[in-house]
């Protein structure tokens, strides 16, 4: 492996911060949701990189579980978005504030 580990971590950090910026700046609930998926994936890249450079399979097993949790999160999150859209006719997270004190 001729590419050093810090470069993989730097790429992962860049993807993670792009995801954070998306969560903070976008107002569409589904796009916010996709930005969270991007952040999960950047962490997966970190885990796979460490797994490969340490020769340990634990990182890859953890990525497997992260994927399972992401799939569950996608199903429940999109069901919530559909339920909110049915009640309020919007997915703008600025207008969905009934839980805000």
């Amino acid at each position, binding site marked *: *492996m*001729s*590419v*050093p*580990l*810090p*470069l*993989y971590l*730097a*790429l992962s*950090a*860049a*993807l993670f*911060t792009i*995801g*954070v*910026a*998306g969560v*903070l*700046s*976008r*107002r*569409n609930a*589904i*796009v916010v*949701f*996709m*930005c969270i*998926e*991007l952040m999960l*994936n950047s962490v*997966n*890249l970190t885990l796979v*990189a460490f*797994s*490969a*450079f*340490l*020769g340990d*399979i*634990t990182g*890859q*097993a953890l990525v*497997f*579980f992260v*994927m*399972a*949790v*992401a*799939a*569950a999160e*996608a*199903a*429940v999150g*999109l*069901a*919530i*978005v*559909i339920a909110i859209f049915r009640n309020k006719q919007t997915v*703008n997270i600025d207008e969905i504030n009934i839980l805000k004190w």
Partner: protein
Amino acid sequence: MTAETLIFALLAIGAIVSAILMVVQRNPLMSAIYLIANFFCLAALYLLLHAQLLAVLQIVVYAGAIMVLVIFVIMLLNLGAENKLTERLNVKITIGVALVVGLLLELLYVVLGPGQDWVPAVVPAGTAGIGTVESMGAALFGQFLLPFEITSLLLLAAVIGAVILAKKRL
């Protein structure tokens, strides 16, 4: 510059560009398309790191299952170009994005800056095959058997929860 470095550079640029395009797109459907492109770049990076099974799972589960679900919901709610949300920049968002840039610089300093004694000096020999289906299966059904079984409970709970949430009335 070896071929591996070149491939890594191309994939890294592709991943970052598609991620930025995903965030700045107005149309949520285009955001989803760019996110799928990003997932393919990441799958190729997994291959570069000898994680073959995860590269396939990345495409099948993420680009296949999850993103199809997202695109399905976008089309179901009809959030296309006609009724884009009015998204405007305000002071709070500007401060937030500035803080995010600070976070990026901090992270880059930690991973690329001085004092890299946490980087493994040599990659252990003979570990190129740890990402195959065989060794992943042995790990998942041996060392990680209990978490693996609990994952099935999580998926069952998610299925039931999604059905209950999306149903009009029970």
